[in-house]
């Protein structure tokens, strides 16, 4: 066991599949008791990172500790201290919910009376009522997700990995999961490593966010820090198709603009003083005969950070990063 105040510490973590480098040397530090949001589009390397940190995959290179134990040489100790809810609920449809939770408790060496107590306690969390004694095959998607989460919590893990816990859930179920995640972290003190492709989710839940793209961490910090890093305000100008590059060139002459990015038919203009910059932007575009159909001033989002750091925009609905 290494002495570390961090719940998770990864250095130069690499994972190759043949010639393909899914994770290309990432460094992560997650402090005990925090919610760390691991944000990126599909295929960015989030799930591969989780599978390494949870001992399902061996790293090709680099090192990491979880709960103070090395994921490679002390994998068994890591497993005792983590709970994991993978991207797809990993359940056995022919067991009942109660049987599944009880078996999970047995595998962590919990005595029978403790297992009985834990199942009762977790029933309050998973909120599936009398269905706990029904076969899991009869559960709805939301119930399966909640049971999967309960299974990850049976042994009171120090670190909980949630791999895209709300993907595919309706807004109501998603809000319920968010509430549970906050409760587990704030009330029970569990460190949470949360992967997501939803910007809003990372913004809402995470104390700190790491943005991963093409296997590398491209930005890390609190959501506010990350957003401030690209300027206090963002001006969005919707221009005609094909005018983007010309508009960006025209705006490059203006002072007080931190950056101008082109994403499809939109210009994303970062600036420290949005209110005073918006008029010169409108005038410059008009003087260059660039038709503007919408002009919006707002504060930056994590999507803007993603675009700024990777040159691509997150598009969770398409589950892809859109190259501009």
């Amino acid at each position, binding site marked *: 066991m290494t002495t570390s105040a961090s719940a998770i510490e990864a250095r130069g973590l690499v994972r190759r599949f043949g010639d393909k480098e899914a994770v290309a040397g990432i460094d992560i530090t997650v402090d005990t008791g925090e919610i760390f949001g691991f944000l990126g589009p599909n295929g960015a390397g989030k799930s591969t990172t989780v599978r390494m940190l949870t001992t399902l995959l061996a790293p090709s290179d680099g090192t990491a500790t979880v709960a103070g134990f090395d994921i490679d040489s002390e994998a068994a100790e890591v*497993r005792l201290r983590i709970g994991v809810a993978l991207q*797809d*609920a990993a*359940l056995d449809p022919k067991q009942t919910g109660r049987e599944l939770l009880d078996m999970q408790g047995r595998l962590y*060496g*919990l005595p029978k009376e403790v297992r009985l107590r834990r199942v009762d*306690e977790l029933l309050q969390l998973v909120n599936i009522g009398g269905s706990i004694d029904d076969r899991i095959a009869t559960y709805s998607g939301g119930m399966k997700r909640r049971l999967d989460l309960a299974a990850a919590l049976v042994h009171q893990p120090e670190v909980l990995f949630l791999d895209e816990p709300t993907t595919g859930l309706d807004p109501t179920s998603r809000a319920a999961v968010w509430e549970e995640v906050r409760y587990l972290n704030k009330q029970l003190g569990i460190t949470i490593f949360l992967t997501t492709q939803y910007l809003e989710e990372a913004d809402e839940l995470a104390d700190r966010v790491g943005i991963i793209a093409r296997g590398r961490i491209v930005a890390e910090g609190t959501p506010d820090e990350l957003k401030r890093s690209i300027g206090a305000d963002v001006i969005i100008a919707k221009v005609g198709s094909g005018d983007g590059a010309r508009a960006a060139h025209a705006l490059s002459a203006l002072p007080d603009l931190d950056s101008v990015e082109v994403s499809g038919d939109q210009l994303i203009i970062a600036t420290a003083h949005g209110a005073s910059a918006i008029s010169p932007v409108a005038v410059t575009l008009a003087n260059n005969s660039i038709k503007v159909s919408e002009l919006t001033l707002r504060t930056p989002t994590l999507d803007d950070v993603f675009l700024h750091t990777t040159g691509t925009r997150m598009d969770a609905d398409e589950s892809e990063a859109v190259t501009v």
Partner: protein
Amino acid sequence: MNTRTDRIVPRHAGFWSDLSSVALRALRLASRDLEAIIPGMAVPLFFLIVNIGSLQSFVEGNLPPGFDFKGFQLPVSVIFAVTGISRAGSLVVDIQDGYFDRLLLTPVSRTTLLIGLMIADLAVVMVMIVPVLILGFIIGVGFETGILGMLVFILIGASWGIAFTGFPYAIALRTGNPAAVNNAFLLFFPFAFLTTAYVPKEQLTGWLSVAANFNPTTYLLEGMRTLILQGWNSTAIFQAFLASGIVAAVSFTLAFSALRGRVRRK
């Protein structure tokens, strides 16, 4: 919500506890999977009746008087009943559904993930032998060695059933493919037919006789038949268990090698 009262200290449950957890789950699921087991029970009963009905007169007519073809055929049906019985199909489902990964995320002893299933298979295999035996009694088959001989007979059959499970488990763990697992039964065909399934060894000629000499099923059937037809023959019984042991050594090596590959975190 309240999901934490007294602090829990998770620990390694230990090999035997893990083994019982995995085996109990497998047995529970087997009892809920009767649609997969009942056909496997019906087929050997069907063949016992058909084989006796179609071949008894012919075989007994060509052999010295007193040859009991019913007793001769009963072990064949038992072997058909127990071969290919395994939880390999549900193991594939576990792999595909991600539940196998959930188990790997726990501190469970990896070898118990396979041995536990085999223990459940042993129980199922022994249950599968019972209806074949009952049908045998109904049509007049008796044991020269009595009840103790019948128990040894069941043990030999069960030992073969378990020995063969290594093949479907190896396929399940290597491929994660349900169709490939279903086809594992095809491996049994050479064992089943290049042997003394229908006539005694002395009646086999040419290449079939040579093949039967190298077929472990020949010795398995011989050991079981002596318990029914002749009496205690320790050499035949030993050879029957040895035949199962040799097949088990091969199939288990393949299965545990496949398990190592599956859990290697490659």
